[in-house]
């Protein structure tokens, strides 16, 4: 493969509202043996927390390079700050494609554009459902189970266990929150109107959600679906408990970390919370001696020492990067855009040890949702206990 440069952009615009993509491009003009992977990520601004994902991906690729790269090629990871702002993301995406020659990243702002340009965008770091639409956007692929899928799993569980539930929903007023809400309402089906007795939204700029919790409580609901990011999730758990409201509490996967959500909220206040998972929680004692998480901890110590080992985003980034590594391995020496996309769409029961037992990554030409399985779990005051089957959702 001498005399060829393969540039690949894995653009992981890591944000709930402005999700990320990975993509690649074949460039026959150059003569280097490296693979460029591009990414935009908020390192500044209100969503800087997601910066951890970009940093752990970069760290993972350093590790891959130390091991000799992929099929003899080094990974060159180029990551830009998009400040969580659509105009900046567009600009940085174009910079990656047109200036750094890595391909085009994408988020909502350039979703259409990217597909028009036929640049693969892999593993958008969000659960927004629109990233798994193989038909309309064949060059874009998400990664995690999408929000609607997850919400449907909860809805189904409620219908099974508590068909007469009166449900209250708290959601963040943006496309992440609305996506969950839609999946949840769809999952409840015709019952939704009747069962959901109260909905309250909040803006990320609000200091607390105490007022919303009181509103929901006074609706008399006995089930609470909590669609919030970590800080607000912790507030909501605490406020619900302190107000004496004891509903069956469903918490979205985004905020199911023991160390960075349940502990701050107060462990005793989180008992009984039901959520779903597909990656291992770095702060959950269950995985203290787990080999997969041990490998991750070693990785953190060596390649990402500044990273917070209680931050699930660091596991997330690690696992996404590992998925991309696998795709690139499968590509062998045919690093064209088409092949990268083809290989991304032919992952077969691929496993990474930071995923929960039983969860694998599979894709196909019409299946653009790599992880579609989750398992419900309930918090027992010490750790999450998985229960029921691994639920593989076919939409």
């Amino acid at each position, binding site marked *: 493969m001498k005399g060829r440069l393969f540039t690949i952009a894995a653009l992981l615009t890591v944000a709930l509202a402005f999700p990320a993509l990975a993509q690649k491009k074949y460039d026959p003009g150059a003569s280097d043996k490296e693979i460029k992977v591009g990414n935009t990520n908020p390192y500044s601004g*209100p969503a800087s927390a997601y910066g951890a994902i970009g940093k752990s991906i970069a760290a993972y690729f350093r590790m891959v390079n130390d091991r000799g790269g992929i099929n003899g090629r080094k990974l060159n990871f180029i990551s830009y*700050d998009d400040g969580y702002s*659509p105009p*900046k993301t567009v600009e940085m995406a174009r910079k990656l494609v047109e200036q750094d020659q890595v391909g085009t990243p994408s988020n909502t702002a350039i979703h*259409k554009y990217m597909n028009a340009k036929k640049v693969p965008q892999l593993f958008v770091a969000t659960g927004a459902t629109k990233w798994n639409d193989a038909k309309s956007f064949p060059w874009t692929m998400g990664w995690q189970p999408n929000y609607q899928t997850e919400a449907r799993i909860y809805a189904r569980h409620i219908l099974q266990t508590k068909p007469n539930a009166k449900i209250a929903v708290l959601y963040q007023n943006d496309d992440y929150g609305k996506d969950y809400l839609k999946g949840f309402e769809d999952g409840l089906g015709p019952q939704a109107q009747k069962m959901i007795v109260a909905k309250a939204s909040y*803006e990320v700029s609000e200091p607390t959600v105490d007022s919303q919790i009181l509103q929901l409580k006074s609706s008399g609901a006995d089930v609470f679906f909590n669609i919030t990011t970590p800080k607000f999730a912790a507030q909501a758990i605490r406020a619900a408990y302190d107000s004496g409201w004891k509903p069956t509490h469903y918490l979205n996967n985004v905020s199911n970390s023991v160390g960075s959500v349940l502990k701050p909220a107060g462990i005793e206040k989180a008992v009984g919370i039901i959520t779903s998972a597909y990656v291992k929680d770095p702060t959950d004692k269950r995985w203290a001696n787990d080999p997969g998480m041990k490998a991750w901890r070693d990785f953190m110590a060596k390649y990402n020492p500044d990273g917070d080992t209680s931050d699930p985003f660091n596991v997330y980034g690690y696992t996404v990067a590992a998925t991309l590594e696998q795709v690139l391995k499968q590509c062998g020496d045919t690093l064209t855009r088409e092949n990268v996309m083809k290989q991304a769409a032919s992952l077969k029961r691929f496993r990474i040890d930071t995923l929960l037992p039983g969860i694998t990554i599979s894709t196909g030409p019409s299946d653009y949702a790599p992880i579609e399985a989750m398992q419900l779990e309930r918090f027992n005051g010490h750790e999450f206990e998985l229960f029921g089957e691994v639920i593989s959702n076919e939409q």
Partner: protein
Amino acid sequence: MSKKLVTVTILLIVLACVLPLVLTNYRTFQATLVLVYAIALLGLNILTGYNGQISLGHGAFYAIGAYAAAMLMDQAGMPYWATIPIAGAVCLVIGFLFGLPALRLEGLYLALATFALAVSMPPILKAHFLEKWTGGVQGIVIVKPDPPAWLAAAGVKLSADQWLYYFVLAIAIVLFIAGWNLISGRVGRALVAIRDHHTAAEAMGINSAIYKSLAFGVSAMYTGIAGALGAIAVQFVAPDSFTVFLSITFLVGIVVGGLASLSGALHGALFIQFVPNIADELSKAAPWAVFGVFLIGFVYLMPTGVAGALRALTRRRSSGKLLHPKEALP
């Protein structure tokens, strides 16, 4: 306008015209954004620099312009060029109306009122009863305009980015000339008089209420046009593009560029477009920290903005003396 200034301006315009021919499409796109920001900053400068009314809310007018263009294109199927004057007119009216009550507010309180406007914009754009038109939290994706057919017919081949750049450049030139006329004429003198000597201006028979509201309207119009152009360039509008940070960025732009200076708008636009990128290049760990250091550094070195520093430089060269603003007559 001095002869030298005319020369410099013409040179700049020529340079601006040649630019996309030598730049990549991506750089051209960045240059387009610089022009867009320059128009927005010129608008804010008319209000804050020349008329002394502080606005922490111009991001809201930018948003209104952007959404006006996006909604007209997306839902009314209007061609992109036709949305520009409408976006401008809408902002002119809204700005003027906002300026009327704002007359009663001075300094900090005006800052609060405009700040409130900026803070209110994203929730309003997300509001469920407007979702049909605004697209709610998802926003609106719009298509980048292609160069018109008559250009191709005439044998001029331009990429979409180049065409958009020239389109924005033409509008920017028109708006800057109009702005220069406004500022250097009767209206401009009245605005400055109101800023510096409010009571005296009233005594001279300047109706400050009308002028101040007018300044608000014109200022909002400029920023709204910039918003419309920005939306077309970025091809996307969403509520979270227009947070209060955008307004603060504009304020930073006019201060760093130079208050009460036309060229300051351009300097400021270059700053807010490129300095964050430089900061990002320098540090992934804390890009904002680098940006903040740049910001403070600029203010230290050029307290009257880039335009002020350039003015002082040319003055020193011509007169051999540097006036200390501190020592001005009391």
